[in-house]
């Protein structure tokens, strides 16, 4: 990867990791603390190059674990720095304790997350179970469909996290290897544009402000703990608005829409699949192909998983001609009805008094292939469900039986 400044907008052949590293370079955070873990390692290699070549002013902290990486980021963010890290799968799991610390202390940190499966058995490939495990830790979660989206989402994440109405950390996920290591065309913004977009960080009570000493991370007993959690809920609700605003602002710069969801050909669709991450790209292709055959199909891609866009999703479904819906999950909730996304979709519809036949589909665990045939198979399940045929609560796609 050429170590250069980007003076002009251009389309480059980049992997997801390269795109994320480039975004980090253009954001030029004050502190990056990271520990290498497949499939994120490459991203931090690129970033270390930038640091070594003086292309960023970042203090790059090489730590001995992900627990320390996020701890360093929390410390740096409390001190008043714009701090970021990157991780994947078990690395995010090792950050678990500090995830809650970062969100509870309301620090605007950003994680570039390369989604990877969790052990056991050991698996290094793309899977959403790491992110779903971190689901309730108070982080804003954005999910990317491809390398360019990861790049765009990371730039927006900084602005979302630092908004004074939000002040919550953000993780931006991309599927391990499928996005992180695949080369594709990525349209880069100019360094100057990114710097202008993210702007200067406005700090709230930084520890390094010795004129106004503060204590971060204090104790709160049962007399006030719940009030602080209520504040976090409020921040998440604000984030719902702020993500939209930042998306609009970014769209003006980029010429590409960034909303909570992306409804693809759903207006007249009878069968709808709800997808997240890289499979959304494949699903769009399948929708195009099936539409050529005259089949009324569509997909809804979820970009914001937390705060979950219940209204947007329900609106999009209600506005379509849906007879049945399929929800594709790249993570298991063992003992639950289906995957985590399935539950959210059901909640979105139930709370609006809208009831559709819904099929749960689990796919791609541990990087298992999910190609066009499997998406078509998923649509077949949805069609069966619409026709009133019996469909199991969960259908595993591409499973050896």
């Amino acid at each position, binding site marked *: 990867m050429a170590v250069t400044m980007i003076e002009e907008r251009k389309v480059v052949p980049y992997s997801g990791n390269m795109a994320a590293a480039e975004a980090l370079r253009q954001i030029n955070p004050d502190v990056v603390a990271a520990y290498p873990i497949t499939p994120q390692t490459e991203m931090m290699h690129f970033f270390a190059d930038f640091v070594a070549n003086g292309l960023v002013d970042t203090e790059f902290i090489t730590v001995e674990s992900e627990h320390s990486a996020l701890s360093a980021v929390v410390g740096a963010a409390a001190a008043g720095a714009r701090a970021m890290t990157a991780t994947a799968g078990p690395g995010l799991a090792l950050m678990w304790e500090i995830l809650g610390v970062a969100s509870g202390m309301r*620090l605007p940190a950003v994680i570039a997350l390369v989604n990877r499966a969790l052990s056991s058995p050991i698996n290094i490939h793309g899977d959403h179970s790491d992110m779903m495990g971190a689901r309730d830790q108070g982080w804003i979660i954005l999910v990317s469909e491809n390398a360019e989206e990861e790049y765009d989402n990371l730039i927006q994440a900084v602005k979302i996290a630092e908004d004074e109405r939000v002040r919550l950390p953000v993780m931006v996920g991309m599927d391990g290897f499928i996005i992180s290591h695949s080369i594709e065309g990525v349209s880069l913004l100019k360094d100057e544009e990114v710097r202008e977009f993210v702007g200067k960080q406005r700090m709230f009570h930084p520890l390094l402000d010795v004129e*106004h000493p503060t204590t971060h991370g204090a104790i709160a007993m049962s*007399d006030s703990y719940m009030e602080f959690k209520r504040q976090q809920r409020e921040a998440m609700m604000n984030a719902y608005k702020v993500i939209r605003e930042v998306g609009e602002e970014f769209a003006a710069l980029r010429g590409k829409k960034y909303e909570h969801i992306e409804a693809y050909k759903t207006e007249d669709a009878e069968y709808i699949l709800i997808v997240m991450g890289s499979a959304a790209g494949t699903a769009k292709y399948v929708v195009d192909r099936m539409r050529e055959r005259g089949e009324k199909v569509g997909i809804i891609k979820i970009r914001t998983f937390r705060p979950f866009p219940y209204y947007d999703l329900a609106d999009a479904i209600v506005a379509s001609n849906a007879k049945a819906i399929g929800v594709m999950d790249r993570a298991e909730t063992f003992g639950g009805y289906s995957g985590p996304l399935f539950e959210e979709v059901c909640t979105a519809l139930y709370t609006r008094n809208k009831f559709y036949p819904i099929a749960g589909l689990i796919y791609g665990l541990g990087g298992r292939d999910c190609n066009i045939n499997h998406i078509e198979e998923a649509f077949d399940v949805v069609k069966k469900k619409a026709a009133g045929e019996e469909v199991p609560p969960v259908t595993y796609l591409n499973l050896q039986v």
Partner: protein
Amino acid sequence: MKGWRDLEIGALITEPGNSAEYKTGEWRAWRPVFNRENCIDCMICWVFCPDSSIIVKDKKVVGIDYDHCKGCGICAHECPKSKGDDESKKALVMKPEYLFREED
């Protein structure tokens, strides 16, 4: 108590040195009772008290800060005058808090 809208975001403490306002004495189950007549002002209790709750004026122990004393009993344990059984000769004695608090 403050409502959730009024509390500082992220449990931040913006006012330094305010821990003195935290009345840890409310936790107390045992209360050290000080007897000035038996005290020799050796200051051992003052040195050992983990909560700085021994009040000293002009090099003399004058009392105990019950707002912050958690009733750990270290002062009474270390007090050289409090060894032995004769209650009338002790400088610091631990007594159950319910003897002093009407609401209990």
